[in-house]
């Protein structure tokens, strides 16, 4: 039973209030993209055992989406941040590196 702080309303929400929307910062490919690009957009998701950037919605709370960084093995949460950004904030990288020395962000 995870808990995450929703950066929109500030509440620490139980997992039962939240829904996970999968990998974060996936670029949408529409008309004009190649089959490979489109396949990777829809199906080839990152599935790391470790630090994972993902989308969540505070479905049964404020209803807003946000981003979270979580370790898929230990369930440690490194932070949550706005859904309306292209990529994670710098200071979050620093926080992850502080807690996971040697970690580097891979695209």
């Amino acid at each position, binding site marked *: *039973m*995870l808990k995450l702080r929703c950066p929109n309303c500030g509440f620490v929400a139980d*997992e*039962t209030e939240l*829904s*996970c929307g*999968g990998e974060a910062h996936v670029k949408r490919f529409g008309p004009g993209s190649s*089959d*490979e690009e*489109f*396949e*990777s957009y*829809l*199906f*080839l*998701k*990152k*599935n*790391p*055992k470790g630090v*994972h950037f*993902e989308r969540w919605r505070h479905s049964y709370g404020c209803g807003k989406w946000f981003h979270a960084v*979580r370790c*898929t*093995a*230990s*369930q440690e949460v490194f932070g949550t941040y706005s859904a309306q950004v292209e990529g994670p904030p710098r200071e979050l990288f620093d926080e992850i590196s502080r807690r996971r020395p040697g970690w580097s962000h891979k695209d």
Partner: protein
Amino acid sequence: MSRYSAFAIASKAMRRHSGWERVWTSPDPKRNYDVVIVGAGGHGLATAYYLGKNHNVRDVAIIEKGWLGGGNTGRNTTIVRSGYLQDDSVAIYELSRSLYETMSQDLNFNVMFSPRGLMMLAQTHHEVRGYKRTVNANSLQGLATEFIGPERVKKLCPIIEINGPRFPVLGAFWQARGGTARHDAVAWAYARACSKMGMHVVQQCAVTGISRDEEGIRGVETEKGPINCKKLGVVVAGHSGVLAEMAGFRLPIESVALQALVSEPIKPCLDVVVMANTVHGYISQSDKGELVIGGGTDGFNNYSQRGSFHHIEETVRALVETFPIISRLKMLRQWGGIVDMTGDRSPIISKTPVRNLFFNCGWGTGGFKAIPGSGWAMAELIAKGNPGPLAAPFSLDRFKEGRFIDESVAAGVAH
């Protein structure tokens, strides 16, 4: 290796059972093999077994980071059925189910396959239509399934409440030859048979890297040193993504936790397997007397073999509603496994971008029932280098083409 039988037990009993041989040997790995299989779960071991049995490929090592059968093979709710909808699914699951029928005799190890009958409850009109559709498809696929009415449901399963206030039982999809088997025994039986053929089951040997060159696969790096092979089969369920990353590509797979639980053992009260997809729960009673219960998956990527309690709650709620007498029974143990879910929830048995590297994964929440069929199809793929008709539809390129094998169209969670 000596055969198992009541006579063998009786004669060994005279010497206080000191004369039994090892079920499988535990050799140190060689440097080279024709084929290396990563993952000694049911699917990996079955792959090796059919490589030897059907294709006479016996220079095989099955390497396992933990203990054989210690992953999802030993963590599932042991349901065996083949009443799927799509042709391609029915072909492989029914082959699998039919192999379960004779597995104990084939492998000389009692895997306790028990075709006690399996029903999927229809609790909405939509489900009634979906299951009738499946029955119709099955009849053309040569599969014996039927749609039964509520009275028959009640007769087959007297403890069920068919007039529940919220979701009355409108009927059920019934596969008389579906049932359960003893999960650990399946892994142990295959391991014993592989060992008997001279294959190496190497436990406690994690793969740390996959070596490849322009030609294709070279072998694997492991905790016990590098192992070279001509062909590599990866059959690691929840950790498929991690292995694919080692090989340099990504799979259409996400790993999530699936939970199961058992009650305390009680005297027999449930003879059939019951799945209720509207309310998300499935239940059977083991030979030991425990009610074995499963439900839905967590909605997020998870490698921790621990799920969230509210899923257990949901499942138990649904089952108490459907079987009111279980309210005063107690949950004895709950656990989780990491399942590998594909984009269309159907498996992958496929070549990969790397030559002579093959993946078998994506069985999601329903892998146990597929073990023999999956091994059969994967062995053919590895031995021939190209898929046979069983594996061909489950290739990786279907996601690019939009050619899905979607089983959710006729029923809900359905595993």
